[in-house]
C-alpha cells in the first residue's frame, strides 16, 4: 500500500472511530462524564495542534496555551455580543489563527533562532495570562462581555442550534461536535502532511537550508503550519469554553507545560500518540487529584521522567515498533 493510500485510510478510520465514539458514548455515559469527556477531547485537540506544529513543523512552541486561551476568550466575547453563537465560531478560530500568524511573522521573518522562539512563545503566553488576570474592573469589557479578571467569564453561552439562538445545544450534542472536530482535524492533518505542502514542511524540519536551496520559502511554510496549529488550538479553546468556562488559567504555564508533556509522552512526530497521551494523562491527573495526599503535578512530572527514560520515542512509536516485531 502506498503512503498516500495509507494516509487516506487512516483519515477515513479516524473519522469512522470519531463517528462511533460520538454515537455510542452519549448513550452510556452520564451527564457529568459527558462534560468531562468533552474536556478530554478539547485537550486532545490542543495536543494535536502542538503535535502538528512541533512534531512535523519542528517548531517547539512553549505557548500553545496562548492560542487555546485566545480561542476560548474570543468565543466567549463574541457569543455574549452576537445574537447567534454560531457566528462566534469563525471569530473563535480567526482570532488565534491571526495571532499565531502575527507572532509567527515576527519570529520566522525575523529569523529568530529556535531557543529564542521558545522564549518568545512562552513570554507571550505569560503576558496574556497576566494581562487577562488584571482585567477585573467593570471598565474591562468588550461590548456586553466583561473580561472578569481572574474570575474569567463564567456566563459563556454555549453553542446554539444554527439559526435558532433560543435553542442551546445540550452537553451531549456539544460532545458530538467536539469528537467530530477532533476526528476531522486528525483527518485533515493526515491529508495535509501527505500533500506537497506537508512534505515541504517535513523537509524543512529535516533541513531548513536544503529546503531553501531547493527554492522553498522556509519562512512562509513555517508561518503557515504555525497558523494552522494556532487555529486548531483556538478550536480546542472554543470547545473548552463550551463545557467549562473561560478563565485566565487557559493561558497558564501549567497548560503550556502539560501540552508539551502530552505530546512527548504520546510521541513527537506522530498525530495519534499525542491524542492518546493527552487523554491518558488527563485521566491520570484527574484521578491523582482525588487523592488528598498527592499533588497531581508531581505525578505528571514523574510520568514524564519515567516516559523519557523508558519510552524515549513516545507511546505510539514504541507500540508500533512492538507490533511490527511481533507481526511475522
Amino acid at each position, binding site marked *: 500500500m502506498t503512503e498516500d493510500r495509507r494516509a487516506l485510510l487512516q483519515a477515513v478510520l479516524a473519522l469512522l472511530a470519531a463517528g462511533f465514539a460520538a454515537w455510542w458514548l452519549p448513550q452510556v455515559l452520564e451527564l457529568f462524564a459527558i462534560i468531562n469527556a468533552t474536556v478530554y477531547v478539547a485537550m486532545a485537540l490542543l495536543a494535536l495542534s502542538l503535535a502538528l506544529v512541533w512534531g512535523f513543523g519542528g517548531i517547539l512552541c512553549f505557548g500553545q496555551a496562548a492560542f487555546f486561551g485566545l480561542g476560548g476568550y474570543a468565543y466567549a466575547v463574541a457569543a455574549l455580543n452576537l445574537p447567534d453563537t454560531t457566528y462566534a465560531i469563525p471569530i473563535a478560530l480567526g482570532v488565534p489563527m491571526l495571532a499565531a500568524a502575527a507572532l509567527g511573522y515576527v519570529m520566522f521573518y525575523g529569523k529568530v533562532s529556535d531557543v529564542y522562539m521558545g522564549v518568545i512563545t512562552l513570554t507571550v503566553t505569560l503576558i496574556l495570562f497576566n494581562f487577562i488576570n488584571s482585567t477585573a474592573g467593570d471598565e474591562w469589557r468588550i461590548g456586553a462581555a466583561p473580561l472578569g479578571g481572574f474570575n474569567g467569564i463564567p456566563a459563556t453561552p454555549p453553542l446554539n442550534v444554527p439559526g435558532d439562538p433560543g435553542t442551546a445545544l445540550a452537553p451531549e450534542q456539544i460532545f458530538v461536535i467536539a469528537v467530530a472536530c477532533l476526528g476531522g482535524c486528525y483527518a485533515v492533518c493526515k491529508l495535509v502532511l501527505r500533500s506537497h505542502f506537508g*512534505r515541504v514542511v517535513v*523537509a524543512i524540519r529535516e*533541513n531548513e537550508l*536544503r529546503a531553501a*536551496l*531547493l527554492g522553498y520559502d522556509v519562512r512562509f511554510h513555517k508561518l503557515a503550519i504555525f497558523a494552522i496549529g494556532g487555529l486548531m488550538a483556538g478550536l480546542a479553546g472554543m470547545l473548552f469554553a463550551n463545557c467549562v468556562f473561560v478563565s485566565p488559567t487557559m493561558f497558564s504555564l501549567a497548560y503550556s507545560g502539560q501540552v508539551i508533556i502530552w505530546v512527548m509522552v504520546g510521541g513527537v512526530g506522530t498525530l495519534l500518540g499525542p491524542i492518546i497521551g493527552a487523554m491518558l494523562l488527563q485521566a491520570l491527573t484527574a484521578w491523582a487529584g482525588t487523592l488528598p495526599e498527592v499533588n497531581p503535578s508531581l505525578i505528571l512530572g514523574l510520568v514524564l521522567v519515567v516516559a523519557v527514560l523508558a519510552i524515549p520515542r513516545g507511546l505510539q512509536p514504541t507500540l508500533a515498533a512492538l507490533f511490527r516485531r511481533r507481526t511475522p
Partner: protein
Amino acid sequence: MTALLATEGLTMRFGGVVAVDDVNLSVAERELRCLIGPNGAGKSTFFRCLTGQYRPTAGRILWRGRDITGLEPHAIARLGIGIKTQVPSLFDGLTALEGVTLAVRRKHGEREAKRRAMAALERLGIGELAEAQVGLLAHGQRQLVELATVVAPEPDLIILDEPTAGMSAEETAGTATLIREMNRDHAVIVVEHDMQFIRAIASGITVFHQGRILVEDCAERVLADPRVHDVYLGRPPEARMAVPA
C-alpha cells in the same frame, strides 16, 4: 554579451575582518569555472554570498544583468541556480528518492517529479539507493545524493562547494566525469581544494587569496603560475622574489 552570473566589487566584512574584498567575477553561459585557494582565502564566504546565505557588505551580484544582491536563498534557487554545500545538506529522515523528488516537485507534478528524480539518481549511479534513508548512507553516497538533488531540477547554473570532499578516488573520478558532462548543458562553478580534481576537470580557474582574486586564467597557466604555488605553500610573493634563481 551579458554574463550569466557576475559580481561587481563584492565585499563581505565581519567586524574588522574583510573575508571577501572587492571581487569582480563573471561567469558565462555553459562555462565551467573553478574557484580555488588555500584555507581562509574567502572562497566559502564568497560562495555563501552568491547563494544568499550572507548578505554582502558592499558590491552587487548580477544574474543575467539583474541585480539579485541580498535575495533570500530560496529566491536565488528559484532563478535556476542549483547549489551544493560543502558538508552534504540533505533530508536525513527521508529516502534518497523522496529528497530528490522534492527538488523537482516545485516545477512538476508528483509522477513526473518522481520519474525525473529517479533518472537523476541513476545518472549519478546510485539508483539502487533510491529507497535508502539518507541519514544512514556513507559520506560519499551522501555527496552523490546531494549532487543528484542539485542536478535533478536542471538548473541553468550549478554551484558546487567542494563536491568531492570525503569521496573515494573512484567516486572523485566519477564526479569529475559527471561535472564535465553537466557542463555540456549548464554553467558550473566549482569551489575546490583538490588540485588533482581541478586538473581532471581542466577549466577556467579563479584563484582566491586573502579575500581577493589573485589570478584568473585557464587551468594550464594558473596551475603553472608560481604565485599560485606560493599561496598554497604559504610563501608571500615578496619572499619568493627574494630567493635567487
